[in-house]
C-alpha cells in the first residue's frame, strides 16, 4: 500500500492552462523530489526539497515551480502548460541519510 500519493493519475489539458500536480506522503519523510520521465527515457530530477520552506531546482531545467509549506505536501505547479510539458511526473520521498526512495504512482500529463 502506497504511503505517497499523487493526484491526478492522468490529466489532459489545453495549452495555456495553469495546473498543480499534488504529492503527499504520510511517512514523515523530510526529503521530497519531483522527477520527470518521458516514455523509454531515464528519470530526470526537476525539483527537490530537504524540508519545510526548502526547495531547489534539479538537474533538468523545468518551467514548473514547487512549494513545501508542510512536511507532507510537495505540490508542483505549471503556470501555463504547453505541449512540451507532456510527460510523466513522479514524486518521491526519503528520510535524511536513507537512500531508498519511495515513489508515488505518478501523474501522466498530456497537454494538447
Amino acid at each position, binding site marked *: 500500500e502506497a504511503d505517497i500519493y499523487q493526484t491526478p493519475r492522468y490529466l489532459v489539458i489545453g495549452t495555456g492552462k495553469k495546473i498543480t500536480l499534488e504529492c503527499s506522503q504520510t511517512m514523515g519523510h523530510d*526529503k521530497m*523530489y519531483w*522527477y520527470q520521465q518521458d516514455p*523509454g*527515457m*531515464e*528519470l*530526470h*530530477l526537476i525539483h*527537490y526539497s*530537504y524540508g519545510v520552506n526548502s526547495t531547489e531546482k*534539479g*538537474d533538468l531545467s523545468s518551467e514548473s515551480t514547487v512549494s513545501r509549506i508542510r512536511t507532507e505536501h510537495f505540490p508542483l505547479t505549471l503556470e501555463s502548460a504547453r505541449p512540451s510539458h507532456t510527460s510523466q511526473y*513522479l514524486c*518521491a520521498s526519503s528520510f*535524511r541519510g536513507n*537512500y*531508498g*526512495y*519511495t*515513489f*508515488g*504512482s*505518478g501523474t501522466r500529463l498530456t497537454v494538447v
Partner: protein
Amino acid sequence: EDKVVQSPLSLVVHEGDTVTLNCSYEVTNFRSLLWYKQEKKAPTFLFMLTSSGIEKKSGRLSSILDKKELFSILNITATQTGDSAVYLCAVTYGNKLVFGAGTILRVKS
C-alpha cells in the same frame, strides 16, 4: 558530467532463462547504487549497494557492485513473465540520485 549507463537497452528471454543486467557509472562523490523495477507505474525499490563484492539477494534476484571498475550487475534466475518490466539503475551523489535509462526486460511464456 555524472552519468549512469545501462545495458542492454532491451532484452527478450523465455521463461526459465537467467538474465544479467549491467549498470556502469561515472559520478563524483559516489555513495551508493540502487536498483529499481518499474512496471506500469512508479519504480519499486529492489536493492541498495554500497560496498564492493558483497552480493545482495532477494529470491531469484541478486546484485553485486564493483567500485573499482564502476559497475554493478543485476541477475535474475529462472525468469517468470512477472519479471517483465523496466529495470532502473541509479547512483547517489550528495543527496540526489542520477538514473540510467533502464533495461526493458520481456519474458515470454
